[in-house]
């Protein structure tokens, strides 16, 4: 009896991280705001998350602090989630993504990312479940196409700002059938060697 309680205790405290990233180029206050809501915290708690890490961009600290203090009471009522934030990591965010993937003794979490191709690619390579949230203030941006296409192929969850709770639920589903990136080659590649074949062609290497 005592032992099973201990085991339950153990699984309960196993770290599970949700990493939110808005990238380095544009600000995305709406996403920072959307993840610092009681509703979103509830969704995280339901899915057994313990940590929330927000990369808020070079100028996002004020926004982050503002929401944290504004909603301090509501959020602290759900204080079993540890919230941290930082501006940007010059060396890339691969390390944060890996910690969302989970180190030894931790549970695999999720990455919530803006629709930047660099961030998406990083997450796909690490094979951590990914929710892509296109920035509505950049609606003419072609990157929304990338999010839609990848979602329809079943590689990512296309998250919407108004309903991130649903995205968290979907990402648990995505985790169960996580596909490996890159996809099996579906193009017409006679050499089967991708870019290396084309480069060798153009160089005139014959062997």
């Amino acid at each position, binding site marked *: 009896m005592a032992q099973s309680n201990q085991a339950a205790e153990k699984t309960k405290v196993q770290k599970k991280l949700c990493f939110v990233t808005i990238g380095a180029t544009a600000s995305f206050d709406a996403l920072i705001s959307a993840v610092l809501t009681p509703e979103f915290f509830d969704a995280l708690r339901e899915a057994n998350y313990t940590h929330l890490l927000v990369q808020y961009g070079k100028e996002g600290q004020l926004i982050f602090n503002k929401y944290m203090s504004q909603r301090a009471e509501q959020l602290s009522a759900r204080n079993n989630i540890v919230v941290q934030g930082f501006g940007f990591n010059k060396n890339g965010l691969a390390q944060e993504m890996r910690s969302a993937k989970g180190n030894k003794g931790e549970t695999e979490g999720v990455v919530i990312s803006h629709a930047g*191709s660099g961030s998406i690619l990083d997450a796909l390579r690490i094979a951590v479940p990914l929710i892509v949230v296109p920035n509505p203030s950049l609606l003419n941006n072609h990157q929304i196409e990338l999010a839609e296409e990848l979602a329809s192929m079943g590689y990512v969850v296309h998250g919407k700002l108004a309903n991130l709770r649903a995205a968290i639920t979907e990402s648990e589903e995505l985790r169960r059938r996580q596909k490996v990136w890159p996809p099996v080659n579906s193009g017409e590649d006679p050499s089967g060697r991708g*870019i290396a074949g084309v480069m060798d*062609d153009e*160089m*005139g290497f014959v062997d």
Partner: protein
Amino acid sequence: MPLVHELKAAILVGILLFVVASLRLLYILPSVRKTCPAPRKRGAPTRLLIVLGSGGHTAEMFAILSKLDTASYTHRSYVVSEGDNFSAQKAIEFEDHLSARLTKLEARSPSQSPSARPPEQKNRQAPGKSPSLNYDITIIPRARRIHQSLWSTPISAVKCLLACFSVLRSPSWTALNSADKEMVAAKATYTYPDLVLTNGPGTAVCVVLACLLLKCVGARGTQNKLRTIYVESWARVRGLSLSGKILVRLVDRFLVQWEALKGVGGGRGEYLGVLV
């Protein structure tokens, strides 16, 4: 009276020059007349020029190059836009990774005779030690900065084009000791790049135009060199980027990464699947 004659003659010459230039351009354009590269042996010194862009472009480029065979592409030149600190750093990290991979390979097959090794391995440097003879990084000014006034754009565009010519002519060895013997040999070996690879930052347009101009005038030493490959960004799912639209008929090979773009630019877009 003679002035009119001279004027007429000048106009005629002008028209003639224009026609000749246009015909020449048509003759060299890859989309009009496809040429086959001359065969060459693997392991000969080759120079690969890689145009890097901002965050996303650069990340994609190094994903594309992750399996690059350094024995076939012995010298790499990276072109970085002014004001982009991130890409140059990424290039150095990538070269360190290549050189670490080579060391691992050597450790696995120590029986390989030194004479059979490609030239790169002989003058390899310790990781993290840039500059190296195996690669160089050049920063070139932007053709047009964001919010730059329109009247000054032609001046900055010309500056950018001149910088492109200079980076094409030879690698920038400035950071190296020019008295070094290997250095002198490398200087003689590497001139115009054999291959130019880009995935679509604004700078790419300048570099490819510079290549075309050099080929158009038939600059000495450009024969069988300056072949261009453009890889449209993975982020472009249903339509080409501006650089892609400009360059689709001007490069030797135009690769796309989504099926919807297959055959764009009058059948030029090749779809080999995802390359990143």
